[in-house]
């Protein structure tokens, strides 16, 4: 019983972390209408930027994450501007395919500079806390807090700020948004910056738990997309629900499956949801 409770707790933490990049990818989808697979290598880049800030410049993890956010956001905006934006005119599926090529290129940029070795962040050694027979590490708690703050910021931004509403307006009806004077290019840049920045945070949060290498983001991509699809691509609250579901399901799968199969859980979840409820748990684009 305690074992299951521990797995559920781990799953909630993992799911909350997963929710961060999942929100990023779903927000980008909502505005630009295509799955941007570049999210996987941009998450990796965020993790490496955080690594450089943390290990080479000695910043604490929380500050290094900000560096990861900024670099990933920047790469997201620039790569979209140069690579994907012109291709979107040739069709959204073409853009999705181009984003696969883009992610491969960016992954190899990381590989070019850092090689294939595993690297670890420089973290203070801390003992796990125990309560009710469950274990939780201080770093996990910090990660959880960072993920929750990032999510809260996204929700407040979308619900109350002028730019957040403009973003929803473009997601809803780009042509009308243009007529109403909302600059879709600006919105696209902001959603790319914020969305890919969140992916960068996600990449680093995933890396803080273990270690990083050029495939860090790619290994998480199934879980990230599973979370977004599960909640309904384009729906921000859906991404959170989806991420928690995936996080818990992946942990619970350890009861019956070998650890390498964890990422297959996301795939199975996608299949189940798409078969039973093609618009996702909360329906497509609920927000």
């Amino acid at each position, binding site marked *: 019983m305690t074992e299951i409770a521990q797995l559920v707790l781990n799953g909630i933490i993992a799911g909350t972390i997963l929710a961060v990049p999942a929100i990023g990818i779903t927000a980008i989808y909502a505005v630009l209408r295509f799955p941007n697979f570049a999210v996987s290598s941009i998450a990796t880049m965020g993790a490496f930027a955080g690594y450089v800030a943390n290990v080479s410049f000695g910043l604490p993890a929380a500050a290094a994450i900000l560096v990861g956010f900024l670099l990933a956001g920047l790469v997201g905006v620039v790569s979209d501007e140069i690579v994907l934006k012109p291709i979107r005119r040739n069709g959204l599926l073409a853009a999705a395919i181009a984003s696969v090529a883009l992610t491969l*290129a960016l992954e190899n940029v990381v590989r070019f500079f850092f090689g294939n070795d595993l690297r670890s962040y420089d973290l203070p050694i801390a003992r796990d806390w125990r309560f009710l027979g469950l274990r939780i590490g201080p770093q996990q708690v910090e990660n959880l807090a960072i993920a929750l703050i990032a999510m809260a910021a996204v929700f407040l931004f979308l619900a109350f700020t002028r730019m957040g509403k403009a973003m929803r307006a473009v997601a809803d009806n780009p042509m009308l948004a243009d007529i109403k004077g909302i600059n879709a290019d600006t919105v696209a840049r902001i959603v790319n910056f914020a969305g890919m920045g969140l992916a960068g945070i996600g990449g680093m949060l995933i890396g803080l738990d273990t270690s990083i290498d050029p495939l860090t983001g790619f290994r998480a991509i199934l879980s990230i997309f599973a979370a977004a699809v599960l909640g309904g691509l384009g729906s921000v609250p859906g991404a959170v629900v989806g991420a928690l579901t995936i996080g818990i399901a992946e942990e619970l799968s350890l009861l019956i499956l070998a650890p390498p199969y964890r990422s297959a859980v996301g*795939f199975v979840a996608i299949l189940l949801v798409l078969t039973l409820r093609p618009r996702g748990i909360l329906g497509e684009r609920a927000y």
Partner: protein
Amino acid sequence: MTDYLVAMLTFAALYGLMSLALNLVWGMAGMINLGLVGFFALGGYASALLTHRFGLPIPVGLAAAFLFAGACGVVVALVTARLRGDYLAIVTLGFAEVVRIIASNEIWLTNGTDGISGIPGPLRGEVPPATFNLVYLLIVLAVVAIAFFLLQNLRHSPFGRVLRAIRDDDQVAAVAGKWVIAFKIEAFAISSGMLGLAGALYGHYTSYIAPDAFVPLVTIYIVLALSAGGTGSNLGALCGALLIVFFQEGTRFIAAWAPGLGAVQLAALREIAISATLILILRFRPQGLLPEKLPRLAKR
């Protein structure tokens, strides 16, 4: 030099077979498959296991690869046939990853990341290696020629017309009296089967397969081949495949003008070059070099 050319042409033909397969689902029916390499792997393992471990003849292995990959294609298509393109992209991408995870971890079956070596090839060991390579090239070319001929028939048949209609609007195609799901499943199954066959031919040619050979990069190559050649056109699919192999070989010479780089860095540069090429084609020539043509049927 001849050996090198023969090897290159063999790979070009294998890519051509996969590119034709992609053209059937994506070019004609409009269903994107970003998990090509998964079906390729399924066929490779199916044939390798049957011929290597159970000693069955190679043609049986090839047929089994076609059928097994095709059957898996039916399952994937059953689940995804109702989905829009972007979801299909996600599911197929995930499918290929799951295949690779299984291949890496079910050691009892696939020998894990060490892979399976010593896969038999026709006449291998009985004739000199150069002759084997030439014979194998002819076999692969024959398979590609048959596939091309059949797919051209399909392309110009009423069946092909229904697929192209489904690509445009599957709901209206249903109202036109077409059982859309069945058409999609058929197209996906044949395409997957062809990919499996290509995987099997690959295994018997190199005599060794491992999960490393089935990375998403292979899918990118094929998508690149078809995009470059011309989505919707079978001839374009073949030309694209030939171009890609030449291009791939060309990028090997990066090492010549970039001395002082390690192997990892060189490999990274090549992958960047290949990705960048696909991006440039999607940007500047989305219809490809040999674009699809519409038939002229008004005159009797």
